């Protein structure tokens, strides 16, 4: 249970960063932290205590295996996360070129 709690705390750390940080890069890092807490959560739900890699052994049918599906899901999610992070970074670089700052308080053309 402690591990799940730590995973949740990691999520909250990311959320805190997204809400309070003023620097665009730090917001992007906080988003990545949140993302990785959800990957960690997926890896945890597939874990079985005492389980081994799911390669079926005909000699020992009673072996416990870990659930391989969440790992496949995490791999997919990591690839997607890479794409979103790359996209976000590209936008941040463009913003820096236009505004000459990373401070979110000075990037506020759109209101109302």
């Amino acid at each position, binding site marked *: 249970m402690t591990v799940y709690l730590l995973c949740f705390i990691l*999520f909250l750390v990311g959320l805190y960063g*997204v809400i309070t940080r003023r620097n*665009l890069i730090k*917001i992007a890092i906080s*988003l990545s932290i*949140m*993302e990785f807490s*959800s990957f960690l*959560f*997926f890896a945890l*739900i597939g874990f079985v205590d005492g389980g081994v890699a799911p390669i079926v052994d005909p000699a020992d049918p009673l072996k416990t295996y870990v*659930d391989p*599906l*969440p790992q496949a*899901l995490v791999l*997919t*999610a990591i690839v*997607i996360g890479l*794409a*979103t992070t790359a*996209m*976000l970074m590209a*936008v*941040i670089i*463009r*913003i820096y070129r*236009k*505004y000459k700052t990373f401070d979110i308080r000075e*990037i*506020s*053309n*759109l209101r*109302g």
Partner: protein
Amino acid sequence: MNPLIPLFVVVPLAGAFLIMILGRFIRDFHKYFTSLVLLFLVILSFYSLFNSDGNVSVYKVGGWEPVNRIPIGIYMVMDGFTLILLCIVNLIGFLSVFYSISYISRYTSENFFYALFCLMIAGMNGVVLSGDIFNIFVFLEISAISSYALVAFGVEKNELEATFKYQVLGGLASFMILFGIGFIYWKTKTLNIADIKTALGTGNDKYYYLFVQILILSGFGLKAAIIPFHAWLPDAHSSAPSPISAMLSGVLIKAVGIYVIFRLFFNMFILTEAMAVLITTLGTLSMVVGVFLAIGQWDIKRLLAYHSISQMGYVVMSVGIGMILISRGVNDKIATLAVAGGLFHLINHAAFKGLLFLNAGAIEYSTGTRDLKEMGGLSRSMPFTSATSFIASLSISGVPPFNGFFSKLIIIIAAIMAKFYLLAALAVIVSIITLASFLKFQRYAFYNKPQEKVKGDIKEVPFPMVFSMVILSVMCLLLSLLAFPGIREAVLSPAIEILTDPGRYSFQIIGF
């Protein structure tokens, strides 16, 4: 196994690939090729709509058959509700692409625009077709990432700021959805929507699923821009190029937001009255607050964006009323009527809001401004834009005989019959304020005295833009036919049946 189903995803994906490869060698290849791809998808979706006879068809990716009646492969499901969304997505997509042929020519690197557009279509088609929650997440991200890039397509200050906001909030939504999927998988050990439904039927972890439902609702609510989660929408919609605004507002928020909420809450979770009331409240809030935020706007596209929030509120409220009645287990007829009103308004909104954004794009194309105070007297110089936007304005404000009138009428009748008198009254009041707001739009843009900035010779926009606007305005008129028996049974009824009948969806897919 229906072999046509994967084509909806494969064709636009292959199209995006070909545009990037062949677009380098053949001049103007991307423009016409994208239109052809989308035209093919439109024909395919309407062919499927008229040949489905209300049946549910399933495609198992990779041909993995169920083992011990437990589905193991990824399922793609095409039912009535999916078909409606497919038709909207591809038709509005086709008209937007055709419109872009002239509109996008003032931007550089057009081939990226068309490739991203195809990717976005592939993502949305994938979301509405998949019968597997993780697959929904994957396709949702495909469409979301390409829409982030498309919103920033102008790469000016406003576009970049809007897309940053959109990406941060969209990212938050994705993590909430991912966590929700994780929690569902933890308890049920399956990802297939129909299979989860049967697994949920046996368990009784009431509070656990309440938590999951709230996670999922906030995740997809952020994507659908329901009111407490709406911050990104006005910026993103007003900064994007106009055909993309039409796509975002006309179909993206429906396909990846509203559609998934309805699909999961009707067909996957067991409807509880608390959640139904929550959804109805959020819908009503969006409807009322959205219109009040819209009325003070002077930027055309911001005004339209806030109206999108308000009109989506109608859809969510109406379907929410249906959810409340179904969860109470009473008045199936009224529940059906409420859901019908919601879905009908969803279809209509795609037509008239798509058209209004295309109009706004046409005005911007000719005059170079989006500020209502700077234009005026455009009805003489731009007759087609003026006429079509007049039709769209009347139909969004619910004036007969246009489509918006019929859907709002059904929603209001359903609310009165279900004894939600306050909601019915609010729906009427919001409709009147919408009318006022669009009269302002019409007066300042088209009928006032011309302002300094637009005194020069303003010309009507080129043919592809006029064509798309005229087709959509004809649709605004023709879609009102959906309210009448005969056509309604063919198009709306299969969708309503699959949503309102609790066991039907999972029975049709996994057979028990």
